[in-house]
C-alpha cells in the first residue's frame, strides 16, 4: 500500500515537473516606442506621447517599455529616452505607468528638433534592444511622418534590418505634403515592404484607440 502511494506520488511529481517545464509560458510583451523629432514632426511629439500613454495604460503587469527618438543618427544609445519593466502586480504596475506618463510629459515639454531623420537607424536600434529582451511578443511603435532624410555623417540606408518576430506599428503618421496623397501612400508602401522584407509585420494605426488594442490584443 505504502509502496503504491509512494509510486503514485512520484508519478504525480514527475507529471507536475513535466507540465511545469513545457506548459508554463509567458504572456509578457516588450514595446519599444520611437518618436520622430525631425523638423517636420517635432510639433506632433506631444500628441504622440499622449497616444503612447493610452497604449501604456493598457499594458499588462510585467510588460517592458522602451523609448527612443529619431534624430540625425538614431542607431545610438544616446537617443534612448527610457527603459522600464512594469512590476508583476497590478497595483505597482499602475503606479509605474503613471511614472511613465510623467516621464513622457517631461520629454514632450523639452523635446528639441533634429536636422536629419534616420528612421532606419532608429528601427535597427529598437530591434537590437528588443532582441535582448526575453519576452516573446515584441512591438516597435513608430510615431513619425515616415519621411527619411539621412545626414552625410550617418547614412544607414544600406543597413540590413532583421525584424524577425517583431511587429512594427506606425502610429499618427502625419501627412507632410497634403497636396500629394500619392506620395504619402507610396511612402507607406515602401516602408511596409522594407519591414516585411526584414521579417517583421507591418500595421498602420490612424486613431488613438486602435493602438492599445493592436499591442495588447494583437488586433
Amino acid at each position, binding site marked *: 500500500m505504502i509502496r503504491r502511494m509512494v509510486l503514485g506520488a512520484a508519478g504525480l511529481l514527475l507529471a507536475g515537473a513535466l*507540465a511545469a517545464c513545457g*506548459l*508554463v*509560458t*509567458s*504572456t*509578457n510583451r516588450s514595446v519599444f516606442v520611437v518618436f520622430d523629432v525631425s523638423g517636420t514632426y517635432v510639433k506632433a511629439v*506631444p500628441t504622440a*506621447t*499622449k*497616444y503612447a*500613454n*493610452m497604449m*501604456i*495604460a*493598457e499594458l*499588462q*503587469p*510585467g*510588460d517592458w517599455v522602451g523609448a527612443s527618438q529619431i534624430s540625425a543618427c538614431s542607431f545610438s544609445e544616446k537617443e534612448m529616452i527610457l527603459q522600464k519593466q512594469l512590476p*508583476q*502586480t*497590478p*497595483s505597482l504596475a*499602475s*503606479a509605474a*505607468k*503613471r511614472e511613465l*506618463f*510623467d516621464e*513622457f*510629459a517631461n520629454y*514632450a*515639454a523639452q523635446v528639441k528638433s533634429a536636422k536629419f531623420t534616420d528612421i532606419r537607424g532608429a528601427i535597427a536600434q529598437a530591434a537590437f534592444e528588443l532582441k535582448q529582451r526575453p519576452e516573446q511578443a515584441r512591438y516597435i511603435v513608430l510615431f513619425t511622418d515616415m519621411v527619411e532624410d539621412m545626414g552625410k555623417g550617418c547614412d544607414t540606408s544600406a543597413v540590413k534590418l532583421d525584424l524577425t518576430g517583431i511587429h512594427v506599428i506606425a502610429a499618427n503618421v502625419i501627412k507632410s505634403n497634403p497636396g500629394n496623397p500619392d506620395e504619402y501612400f507610396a511612402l507607406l508602401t515602401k516602408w511596409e515592404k522594407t519591414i516585411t522584407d526584414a521579417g517583421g509585420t507591418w500595421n498602420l494605426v490612424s486613431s*488613438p484607440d486602435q493602438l492599445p488594442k493592436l499591442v495588447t490584443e494583437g488586433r
Partner: protein
Amino acid sequence: MSNVTAFLGGSLIGGLPNWVLVLLIAVCVFGGIFERWGVWLTEHGRIARSRCDEKIASHRADELQDRLMNLEARMGQQAATMPKELHPIVARLDKSTDQINKAATYLADINIEEAAERSFRAAMPSMESTRGLSKLEKNIAQTTGRTIREKLSEIRPALSILKQEAPRLKADAAKLHDIDAKFNQSVRQVNDQFKEFEAIMRSEDRATIASRASIVVPWLIALIIMTIALSGVFLNFFLIERPMSEIVGEGARIAGVGLPTFAALIVIFLEFVTGVILMDALGFTRLIPAFESMSDKGKKILAVIAFIFLGAFSVLEVTLSMVREEIIETQQETSRIASASLISPSLTTPRDTPDAAATPENGNPAQEVRKQGLAKATIAQIILAAIIPWLLAAAALPLETIIRSSVFMVSIASSYLLLTLGFICRSIGAPSQTIGRLFGGGSKNTDREDEKAAKAEERAARKQTKKNKKDDDEGQGSQREDDLMVFEELPQDDVQSNRRDKRQRELKSA
C-alpha cells in the same frame, strides 16, 4: 482496391447490391460466431445486471443500517433525557396524589347528618324556653346554618386542593402521553427500518430489492443542488481571479491559462476539498475511505482543522474582494489619466485634470455618489466572499449521491447494452446458422463443436464450483468488508446451472 469498391458498388442478382450479398454470405458463414457472441454477451449482461442489483441492494442496506444507527442514537438520547423529564413529573404526581388522598379522607370523614342532628339538639333548650313557633323555626335555622357554615369552612381547603391538583394531574398525564407517543413512534420507525433491512439481507430476489431503491430521483436532486453550487463557484471565481494577480503576479500562463486564473481555480478546489473533508469528518458523507477506519477523536480533530481552514479561506476571500475593488479603482484611474491627457492641454498628472481635482470635500456630487456606490459594492463583495467558501463546503453533500448513483446508472446501462448486443447477435446468428446447416450440410461438425463447447463449459463450471467452495472454506476465517458479499455467489451459481441446463436442452433439441 478500386476493383473491390467497384464490385461492392455493382449488382449481380436482380438489383440487389453486391455489398448486401457479401454481407449475407458473411452472416451465413460466420453465423455460429454471432450465436456464440450472443450467448456470451447475454450471460455477461445478466451477470452484470445481477451484480448491479446486488450493489444497489447492498447500498440500500448500508443506508438503512445508517438510519438504524441514527435512530438508535436518537433513542439512546431520549432514554438518557427521559429520567430527567420523568422525575419531576413523578414527584409532582406523588405530591398531588398525597394531597388528594388527604383531602378525600377528610371529606370522607365529614358527617353532615350528624352535624345537622347536633345542631338540632343544640337548639332544643331554647325550644323549650321559647313557645313561639316562628322563633323556634328561626332558632333552628340559625343553629343549623351556623353549624353547616363551620363545617363548610373546614371542607374548603380540601376542595381548593382538589381544584389545584386536578389541572396539574391533567398536564402531567398529557406530558406522559407525549413521551409515550414519541417513544412509540421511534420504536415503530426502528421496527420498520429493521424489517426492511432484514428483508434486504434475507431476500434472494435481489432485482426486486434493487428496484425498490430509487436511484434517479436522488441523483437528479443532487445534480440540481450541485449545479447551483457550481454557479456559486463561477461567481466566486470571478470575484477572486483579478485580485489573485496581486499575490501571484501576472504574465505567466500554465497550459494556456493565466496564472491568476489558475491560482483562483486552485483556491476554489482547495476550498472544495476542505469542504469534503469537513463533511466526511462530521459524518455527513462517506467519500474518503480513510475516514471509515478512523477513530472518533481523529475525525473530530480533522473536522476542527477543516473548519479552521475554511474560516481562513473565508478571510482570504474577504481580503481579496477588498483588494479587487482597489485594483479596479487604480486601473480605471490610470486609464482615465491617459485618456484625459488627450483632451487636456497639460499632459498627464491627475492633479492637472479637473475631474481628479474635484474631491468630495469640494462638494462634487457625482464623485460622492460614485464613492458611495463603490463602498456598497465592496460591502456586497465582502459578504459574498465570506459566505461562498462555506457554500462550497456544503456542495460536498450531494457529491456522494451523484457519484454513487452515476456508478449505478452506468452499471445498469452497460448491462442493458450487453443484453441488447447479445440479443442482436443471437438474432443474426440463429437464423444464419440454420441456413448454413441447410445449405452447407455441416451439421455434424457443428454438433460436435457444440458438444465440445458444452463439455468445456461444464468442466469450467465444475472448476468454478470447486474454486468457490475452496474460497468459502478459506474465506470463513477472513473478514469480509461487506456482509452482503455472500449473496454475490448465489446468482452466479444459478446462472451457471441455468447455462448448463439450457445448453443441454439445446443439444437435445438439435
